[in-house]
């Protein structure tokens, strides 16, 4: 990647002359540099995106027409389970941690993450966790097939993959917690003088809140899966009524993790979009402080809405009412964010480079996912939506053109800063338009299917659902194929391309843009001046 950096005269004062880095495999295995670790996270995430995506292709191929053509129903169930586990824990979460590694130190004027060796460990746990999880495909009984939600008692029926899956999840959780601790310690202790909390870029803010959610939520998941483990091997009956347990208690515990988890996946996306839109609107972010407070309130609310995943389990009326109202309340801070982004564009001067296209795609399609989310909050209507493709459409709208588009937008936004070259803009725009069109062909018809009565997680369906499934599958194949443009564009950009300036985008604000491109291996060895920080803070 980055060769020796060229330091423009303007920034010589903070650029130090030791860009030495270890060579060969040691550079990566012993990595403590936040940029190297960030790169490893991002490459790992890309790989998991590919694997998780191929599971999705199996799903869409089997659903192309009614009847069973390709896989056994059990393998189909494994595919939906593994697709979710790989995408959530393997693709999206590590992508955010990778971006946090690359960006947070540069954005707050710190020389590195606070805990570099911990950083190394939190990354290197992941390849082991996912190798273990991947291997479950080849053990007796097959890969886990009880859904990523692992509901008891079904999940306890998993074959040899059962302990492997649980151990893999423990490892992923440990990795996330270590990563979150590192982010919090870095942000709390390593900010350059003058970088007050309310001067931090929103990506840093959203990640700070995400890190607290991770620390609160991941141990709960660990507890839930450990209870599954002891139910299976040590005779406990936490989730078995035969011994006084309750299967529904698993769902309460799981979703107490699971709902904050949803926001763990999306809050950093809010941060990214809040950075990209002002840059390409040539105008400061509208309502910076309300953005921060809205993020914090979403973080808080995420802990008191979990049972909206359980409206049909038979929870009491009062509980259903409470969780309906608390869930609807989330629409308020989320709405504030959407309005603020819109107001940022209003009376701006917009240009449509690839990062902006992805941010706009996010804005429109995430909002559609928000609308279906509001509909799902209405308990009586949820009696018809729950467990159908309407839910599948909803969460894919917030996660694919939501979180994944934000990740891609972030890569297109900061890539020139990372590798010092501009990428092929024309190709990147093709990547956006193909993705944006086919993601809708893929997921929009799933709203229809769900409303018309098609349950999720089924390998075969009544014939009246054929037509929209075919459309969805075609959209899926085309969306999947379009994604190969992404690594190609990045590869091409790293190898060659027009040299990027330090600022990269004419109205980019923030400390990372004060560094040369590519960013030196060690940045902010000498902290940025307060004047520089004031210039970077866009509000």
């Amino acid at each position, binding site marked *: 990647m980055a060769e020796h950096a060229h330091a423009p005269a303007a920034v010589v004062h903070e650029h130090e002359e030791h860009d030495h880095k270890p060579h060969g495999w040691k550079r990566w295995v012993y990595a403590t540099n936040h940029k190297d670790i960030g790169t490893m996270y991002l490459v790992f995430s890309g790989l998991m995106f590919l694997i998780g995506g191929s599971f999705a292709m199996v799903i869409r191929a089997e659903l192309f027409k*009614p*009847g*069973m053509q390709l*896989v*056994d*129903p*059990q393998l189909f169930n494994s595919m939906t389970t593994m697709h979710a586990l790989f995408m959530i824990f393997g693709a999206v979460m590590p992508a955010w941690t990778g971006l946090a590694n690359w960006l947070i130190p540069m954005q707050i004027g710190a020389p590195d993450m606070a805990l570099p060796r911990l950083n190394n460990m939190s990354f290197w746990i992941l390849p082991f966790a996912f190798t273990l999880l991947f291997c479950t495909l080849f053990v007796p009984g097959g890969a886990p*097939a009880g859904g990523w939600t692992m*509901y008891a*008692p*079904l999940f306890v029926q998993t074959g040899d993959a059962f302990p492997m899956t649980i151990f893999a999840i423990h490892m992923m959780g440990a990795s996330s917690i270590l990563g979150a601790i590192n982010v919090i310690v870095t942000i709390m202790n390593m900010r350059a003088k003058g970088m007050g909390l309310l001067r931090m870029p929103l990506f840093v803010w959203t990640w700070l809140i995400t890190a607290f959610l991770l620390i609160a939520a991941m141990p709960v998941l660990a507890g839930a899966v450990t209870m599954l483990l002891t139910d299976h*091997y040590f*005779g406990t009956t936490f989730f*078995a009524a*035969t011994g006084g347990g*309750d*299967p*529904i208690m698993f769902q309460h515990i799981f979703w107490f993790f699971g709902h904050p988890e949803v926001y763990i996946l999306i809050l950093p996306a809010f941060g990214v979009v809040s950075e990209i839109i002002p840059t390409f*609107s040539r105008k400061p972010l*509208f*309502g910076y*402080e*309300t953005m921060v407070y809205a993020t914090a309130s979403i973080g808080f609310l995420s802990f008191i809405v979990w049972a909206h995943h359980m409206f*049909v*389990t*038979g929870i009491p*009326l009062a509980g259903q009412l409470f969780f*309906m*109202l608390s869930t*609807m309340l989330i*629409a308020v801070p989320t709405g*504030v964010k959407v*309005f603020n982004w*819109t107001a940022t*564009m*209003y*009376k*701006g*001067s*917009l*240009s449509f480079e690839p990062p902006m296209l992805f941010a706009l795609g996010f804005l*429109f399609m995430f*909002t559609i996912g928000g609308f279906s989310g*509001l*509909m799902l909050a*209405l308990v*009586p209507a949820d009696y*018809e939506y*729950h*467990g159908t493709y309407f839910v599948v459409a909803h969460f894919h709208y917030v996660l694919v053109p939501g979180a994944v588009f934000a990740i891609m937008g972030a890569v297109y936004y900061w890539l020139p800063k990372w590798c010092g070259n501009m990428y092929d803009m024309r190709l990147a725009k093709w990547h956006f338009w193909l993705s944006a069109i086919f993601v809708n062909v893929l997921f929009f018809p799933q709203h229809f299917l769900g*409303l*018309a*009565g098609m*349950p999720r997680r089924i390998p*075969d*369906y009544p*014939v*009246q659902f054929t*037509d*929209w499934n075919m459309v969805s599958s075609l959209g899926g194949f085309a969306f999947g194929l379009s994604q190969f443009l992404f690594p190609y564009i990045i590869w091409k950009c790293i190898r060659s391309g027009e040299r990027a300036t330090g600022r990269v985008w004419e109205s980019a604000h923030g400390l990372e843009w004060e560094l040369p491109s590519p960013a030196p291996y060690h940045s902010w060895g000498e902290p940025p001046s307060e004047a520089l920080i004031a210039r970077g803070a866009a509000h």
Partner: protein
Amino acid sequence: MKKSRKIVPSFAALAALLCSLAQPAHAESGWAELNMTRGVTAISRQIYDLHMMCFWVCVGIGIVVFGVMIYSIVVFRHSKGAVPDTTMVHNTKVEVIWTIVPVAILIGVAIPAARVLIRTADVSNSQLTVKVTGYQWGWNYDYLQSGVSFFSKLDALSNAARQLDSGIDPNTVPHYLHNVDHPLVVPTGTKILLLITADDVIHSWWVPDLGVKRDAVPGFINETWFEVDADKPGVYRGQCSELCGRDHAFMPIVVDALSKADFATWLKNEEAAQKTQQPAQAAAAATAAARQTQLADTSAAH
């Protein structure tokens, strides 16, 4: 399956066009499967109305929000020489308004939703009680007042067609995957209480036209109810909607709603038939018990 309503006529037209391009031979169109059913109970209609109300609220908000976004994208273009107003960084009045207005809209949506919810939760004054038990993979129905009991599973034709590479075209199977050997038979115009539970893992009993979906949880009993309109006898179909293992997709639910008189006849015949089949019934019960023990053994062994 009830005919679904089209949400957006132009979209349906586009769909029809696509249909004619893609599958000219397809007579019964799946393209019209766009929206929730109105169903055949008072509750299902209230749910439908709630759904459509919220949908139109979202459309309204969408028109305003997307409208401003599109307007900004079209008008404030760098390439057209737009000059940014960099002083516009926040505005307390506007921000208060766009916090309060959504709250008001949400309250407006929440009140009717809560009203319907409270109605669905009222299981009192039922006239017929059926215990529904989910199994991997089928449903057992017990008419508690009369002792009639039977198991309901995927019909043989669907079951043959759904095997991997069966060579049977699902389009030739009537109600493919939406058909069972013994449907649940109920009277119309009667409030029916369902006591839902499961034997092994969690299932979910769902018939869209009845507006009922409730999880079947092993070891627990969930109560819910429905009342099919007196003038709407018919066959209503649904599927298990909680992942319950390998054959989750293959345990449909079929409800045959008969007029009260027809139901009384059916029930009488069924009672008589079950009396003569008593030995067979006992054998079936023994099998179920054995299966129960076997499951308990399996879990104890671990």
